């Protein structure tokens, strides 16, 4: 009896599966690799919501891009590489661009997407040397890279110490993965140049266990702490720093370690914590008004709509805006609204977001202007420092957008990308 039922079930599901027919569409497909579950969900959710709300707003306000609706199928990765690969293979057909939101998945996709001819846009994460467009034809990481971030953080510290940090110790608390290891070589080079000592403190996935790390910090008393963290790791680190009474203004996170989720659990203790950022916080920009009008007020907000205007939500808006703008540029260059993935890449390479264009798009003073080119896929390399105010529960920018130490970064990028080009036998473009 049981077997009979089981067999019937199997037969029924086979019929159901085979009757499923994929609907062919002529729209522009922007597949999303998201993680709304797992250890990285607290950061993954607001970011994904930003993307979806922006796409929905463009579809509702402008009727899509040049008349072509945006399709944004979501694929849940849980921040896992193997699932990311499955999601990529599933959605790559006619996909305009992939935004993996994970450095691990980005590394995985770089060779695959290059072979398949699909654009990968890793906004301020992923492989830093992909900024060299001569080698990485299909990969973009504008507007700023991890190595820029490391250099800008050190620059900020230099500014606080009248340009002399000889003999000081800077600790790097990092996610023990490709992501967290990215800035190490840059910091080593900067350490040589400015004479500071670098202390490396890896934190293993998922980052809940940091007792040993902070015990070491209590013993060694570094002058500054930099952090490359993501997900639960951020909250635990900020809480731990607060509990050992580490001066928070000397604790600087990368732009992925500076959202509300990361500091709120530490309460008052997080007051004064700093992080880098390449977009402004808040919800008073034109784009927010449009999203409110066309999406939220119609009850179509992604998720529960509670992340509106938070740091990572805003970053999602920015990332989605660049992706949509690239499609517009591609439509202009090729004179057709029905662009192919290859045309889309041309659009991404010619994106020019100056102050005027940002204002037109509703992003006035939201982010520093940047432009991509054939050689440069890394954008402007500008980031600012923001600081957390635990009393008003808000982030405020405390510096202007500043650039990195190009002399060091450019050399490192050239070295690393040339090594990759030699390994993979890639000929340089743009000459």
């Amino acid at each position, binding site marked *: 009896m049981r*077997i009979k039922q089981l067999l019937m079930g199997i037969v029924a*599901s086979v019929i*159901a*599966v085979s009757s*499923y027919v994929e609907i062919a569409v002529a729209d522009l497909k922007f597949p999303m690799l*998201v993680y*709304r*579950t797992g250890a990285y969900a607290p950061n993954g959710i607001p970011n994904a919501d930003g993307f979806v709300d922006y796409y929905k707003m463009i579809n509702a306000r402008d009727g899509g891009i040049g008349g072509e609706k945006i399709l944004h199928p*979501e*694929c*849940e990765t*849980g921040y*896992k*590489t*193997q*699932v990311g*690969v*499955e999601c990529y*293979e*599933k959605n*790559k057909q006619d996909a305009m661009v992939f935004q993996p939101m994970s450095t*691990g998945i980005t*590394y*995985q996709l*770089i*060779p*695959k997407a*290059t*072979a398949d001819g699909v654009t990968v846009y890793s906004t301020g994460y992923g*492989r830093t040397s992909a900024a060299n467009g001569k080698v990485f034809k299909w990969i973009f990481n504008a507007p700023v890279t991890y190595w820029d971030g490391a250099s800008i953080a050190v620059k900020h510290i230099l500014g606080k110490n009248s340009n002399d940090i000889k003999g000081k110790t800077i600790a790097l608390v990092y996610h*023990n*993965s*490709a992501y967290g*290891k*990215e800035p*190490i*070589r840059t910091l080593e080079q900067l350490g040589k140049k400015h004479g500071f000592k670098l202390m490396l403190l890896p934190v*293993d*996935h998922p980052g809940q266990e940091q007792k040993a790390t902070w015990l070491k910090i209590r013993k060694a008393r570094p002058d500054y702490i930099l952090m490359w963290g993501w997900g639960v790791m951020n909250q635990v680190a900020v809480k731990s720093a607060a509990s050992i009474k580490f001066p928070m203004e000397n604790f600087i996170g990368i732009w992925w370690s500076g959202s509300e989720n990361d500091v709120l659990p530490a309460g008052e203790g997080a007051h004064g914590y700093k992080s880098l950022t390449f977009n402004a916080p808040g919800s008073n920009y034109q784009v927010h008004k449009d999203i409110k009008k066309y999406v939220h007020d119609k009850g179509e907000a992604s998720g529960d709509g509670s992340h509106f205007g938070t740091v990572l939500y805003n970053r999602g808006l920015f990332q989605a805006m660049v992706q949509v703008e690239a499609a517009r540029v591609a439509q202009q260059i090729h004179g057709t609204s029905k662009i192919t993935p290859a045309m889309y890449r041309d659009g991404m390479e010619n994106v020019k977001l100056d102050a005027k264009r940002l204002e037109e798009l509703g992003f006035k003073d939201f982010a520093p202007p940047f432009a991509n080119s054939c050689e440069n896929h890394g954008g402007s390399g500008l980031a600012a420092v923001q600081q957390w105010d635990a009393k008003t529960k808000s982030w405020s920018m405390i510096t202007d957008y500043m650039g990195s130490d190009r002399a060091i970064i450019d050399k490192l990028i050239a070295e*690393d990308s040339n090594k990759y080009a030699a*390994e*993979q036998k890639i000929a340089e473009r743009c000459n």
Partner: protein
Amino acid sequence: MIYKETGQYKSSYKSDHAIFPLIQDKIAFSTLMFIAFLVIPFVINSYWEKAILVPFLIFSLAAIGLNILTGYCGQVSLGTGGFMAVGAFSTYKIMTYFPDMNIMIIILISGLITAGVGILFGLPSLRIKGFYLAVATLAAQFFLVWLFNKVPWFYNYSDTGQITVSERLMFGIPVTGASAPPYATYLFCLVLVVLLGFAAKNLIRSKIGRSWMAIRDMDIAAEIIGVPPLKTKLSAFAISSFYIGVAGALYFAVFLGAIEVTESFDIMTISFPVLFMIIIGGLGSMLGSFLGAAFIVTLPIGLKFVMVDMVGMSAVTAKHFEITIWGLLMIIFLIVEPHGLARLWSIAKEKLRRWPFPY
């Protein structure tokens, strides 16, 4: 009526000892091989390759390896992820030192290196048993992953600790790297799995396999009748690790292409799933290794397909359902059929023999 042994007489020991004694089984297996070798390569696309078939083949190999150790020799191991990492990193190091060596040979050597490491971590099994051994192999898992992350020599001092495969050819066709066509990677894995699968099946039917089972069923009795525990347990660890090492090498070189040891060989991504594969598939069964691997690899994808693509559920709700269904199925399986899918299959065969006149 169709599936029965009546009328099939064995007139020699050789035919009596065949892997598939029944003509029906032979036909079914040959059909399966025909489809696997001559049909699928012509219809495979990169989604089926990367999401389903290649992971299935690789995890089948890992499950066979763990089944030899746990299912046949009774030594519980949680170190599968660590041993697969040994296979992957051996492949990477050999590839970079000997750029001209054939990839098939590299992968087999990686398996041998893993076998050596497996013997080393199998030594405690002579003194400790059961749960205690599981804890000791857990140490292997954590130690090996830590080692490959900590010592830069293993990842050739790359900045990120990632290892990346370079392109390797087999008969002039790339089988590793991003430009490898789907049929090539699939066939490459399939050939290894079929060859190693037959080797394992025959090992288990031989003296060494019988001594493993003797140790599993009662080690003291086995020792008294003359089965040496040292040799038997260590050979199980060695051969099991060889299979797992080859699986790890394929996982890195053919399947993913770029690997980060802490993420890709984590206990939750490899060790536990492979253990579930042999528990769900059937401990001490070759068929069980394959069924378990197929079940664990395709279940999340199948559930996602049904819930997201057919029913139209949002990706995140589907994921929550998937996690719940997964846990439920695990419990139901252990209660309803603790001997796994392989046992279900043999029950089905029993029923088929009596069909259509059950008594």
